[in-house]
């Protein structure tokens, strides 16, 4: 049992102000010892010499380390505390994964060095590819897409080419539920397709009648997220896929929420034709403050001919990259994929293995339902029933006290937690989407729920001043986003 004094972890601590490195102005010393060849440069090259230096300030090594370590201390990370961002799957990132990808034989190899000098890398990538095919139930996989949104684009390219190859170039309509991630319609547009938004049913799920009304001979695909962004499993999945297939369309699965199903059920078995997998979500590769991620795409046999090149193949006792194939949609990245990210995913799957992989989804879903159970009487739950890996609440009960989702989110910061995802999905007002993931303990979940209940208490008691002021503890308070957008200052200019 934790002493209540220590329950909420945020403190003011030692907080350092840290200027911009451009303000650390002093004569730059010899900051780094570099190897290299000295010698004359050609006159031809010197004719192009840069006339004015770039004005990159340069700090000594100790100053550089301190500058960036101080900056790091202004960040909240998974290693700092709970990070219940819905639809983001902020789980613990194992340190051993960081260690193994830094082995010189994996870090310092060139994508174009002879294949027989890179067999170890190709073997691990091939294995990752096969595993993702097995886990998704869609056996043909490209590792090339660099992020989830990139995977969406690649999947839609394949679907478009598939229809074209069947003489159905009229199929350009992509149905997207109104609960979808914004990347879905944006990817469709980038692929030269037209999106039609499907209104969700009253239970937050796909409405079969709405779906039927929009399916026709011009439908290329339905893009769906299952479980959806309200955290609910689309229980009609079999019928949904059947309807789309009967209309001649393909079903694209946004794999952002695969953490709810991994090892328990496979999108491919349900009728999904094409799925991207956010390895930075489900398979624990670090988010890094916004990337790098990777968005491998897994497809069924019908779409397999169109997979991008290069492809990683196994030729019996060796592995190779295949750079061209007449049916392929072509390359979508300058390399075969973000290897370092994909290898971390391999390490994560290796740790769980055949025996334990299902425990990821089971504990993730357990944790989300536990949070939902503890909060459901004090926060409005827009859609009843079990949730999957994340639960959706709204600020409806707090709104009458003048407290909004944003206030609740900011107050959580003072109490030591990263806020949940706010105002998404768009299908409810004041959404709060909470995804605890499988790597959080009951103790952490209870502390978070206690904090949420304390906020609900304060609302009901009319003690809302602190909620509107929050956050008060971080070294920066609410920032003026309007000013930033109106007068964009994106680079430092010396006075």
């Amino acid at each position, binding site marked *: 049992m934790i002493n209540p004094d220590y329950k909420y972890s945020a403190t003011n601590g030692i907080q350092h102000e840290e200027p911009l490195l451009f303000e650390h102005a002093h004569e730059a010393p010899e900051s780094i010892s570099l190897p290299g060849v000295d010698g004359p440069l050609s006159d031809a*090259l010197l004719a192009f010499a840069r006339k004015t230096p770039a004005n990159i300030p*340069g700090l000594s090594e100790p100053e550089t380390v301190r500058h960036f370590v101080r900056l790091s201390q202004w960040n909240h990370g998974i290693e700092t505390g709970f990070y219940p961002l819905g639809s983001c799957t902020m789980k613990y990132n194992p340190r051993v994964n960081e260690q193994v990808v830094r082995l010189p034989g994996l870090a310092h190899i060139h994508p174009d060095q002879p294949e027989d000098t890179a067999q170890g890398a190709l073997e691990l990538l091939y294995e990752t590819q096969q595993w993702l095919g097995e886990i998704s139930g869609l056996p043909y996989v490209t590792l090339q897409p660099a992020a989830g949104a990139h995977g969406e684009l690649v999947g839609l390219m394949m679907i478009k080419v598939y229809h074209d190859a069947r003489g159905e170039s009229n199929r350009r309509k992509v149905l997207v539920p109104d609960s979808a991630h914004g990347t879905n319609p944006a990817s469709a547009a980038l692929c030269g397709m037209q999106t039609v938004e499907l209104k969700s049913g009253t239970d937050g799920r796909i409405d079969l009648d709405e779906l039927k009304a929009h399916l026709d001979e011009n439908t290329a695909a339905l893009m769906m997220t299952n479980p959806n962004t309200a955290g609910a499993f689309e229980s009609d999945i079999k019928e949904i896929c059947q309807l789309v297939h009967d209309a001649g369309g393909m079903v694209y699965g946004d794999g952002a929420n695969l953490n709810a199903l991994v090892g328990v059920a496979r999108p491919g078995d349900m009728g999904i034709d094409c799925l991207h997998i956010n390895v930075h979500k489900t398979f624990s590769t670090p988010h890094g403050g916004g*990337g790098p991620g990777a968005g491998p795409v897994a497809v069924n046999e019908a779409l397999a001919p169109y997979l991008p090149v290069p492809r990683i193949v196994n030729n019996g006792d060796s592995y190779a990259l295949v750079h061209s194939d007449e049916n392929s949609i072509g*390359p979508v990245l300058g390399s075969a994929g973000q290897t370092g990210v994909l290898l971390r995913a391999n390490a994560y799957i290796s740790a769980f293995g055949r025996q334990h992989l299902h425990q990821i989804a089971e504990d993730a879903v357990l944790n989300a339902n536990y949070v939902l159970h503890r909060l459901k009487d004090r926060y409005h739950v827009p859609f009843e029933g079990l949730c999957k890996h994340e639960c959706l609440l709204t600020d409806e009960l707090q709104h009458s006290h003048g407290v909004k989702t944003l206030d609740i989110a900011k107050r959580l910061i003072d109490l030591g937690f990263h806020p949940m995802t706010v105002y998404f999905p768009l299908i409810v007002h004041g959404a709060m989407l909470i995804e605890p993931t499988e790597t959080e303990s009951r103790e952490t979940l209870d502390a978070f729920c206690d904090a949420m209940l304390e906020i609900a208490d304060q609302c009901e008691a009319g003690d809302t001043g602190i909620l509107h002021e929050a956050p008060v503890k971080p070294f920066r308070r609410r920032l003026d986003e309007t000013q*930033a957008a109106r007068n964009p200052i994106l680079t430092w200019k010396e006075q």
Partner: protein
Amino acid sequence: MRFLPHTETDRRAMLETMGLATLRDLFADVPAEFQMDAGSLELADALSEAGIVRKFTRASQKNRNASNSAYFLGGGTYHHFVPAVVDYVISRGEFLTAYTPYQPEISQGTLQALFEFQTMIARLTGMDVSNASMYEAATATAEAALMARRVTRKSRVVMAGSVNPRYRSVTANYLSRLEGEYVEVGMGQSGTNFGTDLEKVIDAIDAATACVIVQYPDFYGSVYDLAPLRAACDAAKCLMVVAFSDISAFALIESPGAMGADIAVGSGQSLGIPMGFGGPHLGLFTCKQKYLRQMPGRVCGMTSDVNGKRGFVLTLSTREQHIRREKATSNICSNQGLMCTAAATYMTLMGDAGLARVAMHSAAALQSLLSQLPAHVSAANGAHYNETVLSFTDNSARERFLAAARAQDIFAGIPLEQIDPQAASNHLLVATTEMVEASDITDFLAALEVAK
């Protein structure tokens, strides 16, 4: 399972509070026909942490790597020195395990590092503004073409044949999904005269052209004057897009901005990021201020908090997919955030002086090699930074050389046709960095003897 904090007792207790008996009761909404028994997937057996280390170490030992070799491979990925501090900084959990900084009050570290990154990238490229990264150079080039179409409201894209073939093919792939003409010009370089045929590129511009994309230094390492192209773009009211592969060049030679680029895109991998067998690298995207609102990707801006203290936020988000959906400037969401922090750390350690030394060593190594080339190997004419094409009498001569080099742990270059399928099979793309030592060049030249 070591990453999962619950004991069986915890799980049972939590289920009990919900009135449930088993974990699978939580999946009652998933049709039973789709549920699998635990352990039924065809995956490997679970490994201990020690088992993972052994597995990856064994795999890594099947690869030969640059850290104990003489290394001359380039073509878009370069073996520059990565200081230990860079890896330390990006290994800090607060940077490594943070999400996109949508909650600025507790993300100022990432945000200030992004602001510093944007500033330094803009300065190094000579451009007004930089975004907070793209995936890598090829997709950044494609996004530049799309942005130019939005800015000019024209759809024709002209691509120089001397742009990295992978940037070309990815851009062509993206554009092929949309209406509009895409042309590649100045192809079919003959003999040893690899470079950019700027006249042909300029001739291809017409009134319908949204942009011209060139690479500088080009794929063959050639450095050339972009002033004639700038004038032609002005005359045709189209944008000049400059791609680059090794940004270290711009500490030594004129920047894309100084050459008049409207948009400059490329790779930042050279800024403290290991080659990593193709990624994660760092896509850079910069442009003139006036085109800012058509720029794709996240950007970080300066503002102040309610107490008037300086702070940073992600801004101009009305361009982005989570707000604009199908009308967004791009579908990009995750970018290469951590790699921006790596590049910012690298540039801070280097400063102008360090960056200039990296560039001078890189260029000097190539010059040293070229000045000692035997007569039976020819090199392209003109100015080169740290990369060029060597041409052998025939394929057999090249292969004899590559074999001799390999026997001495020299990665001597990339067969040109491996990246550019149209190239003949007697050419070798050779790149140098500050990691090349004088003895590497001596050994390289010695191995060339067998190519006579």
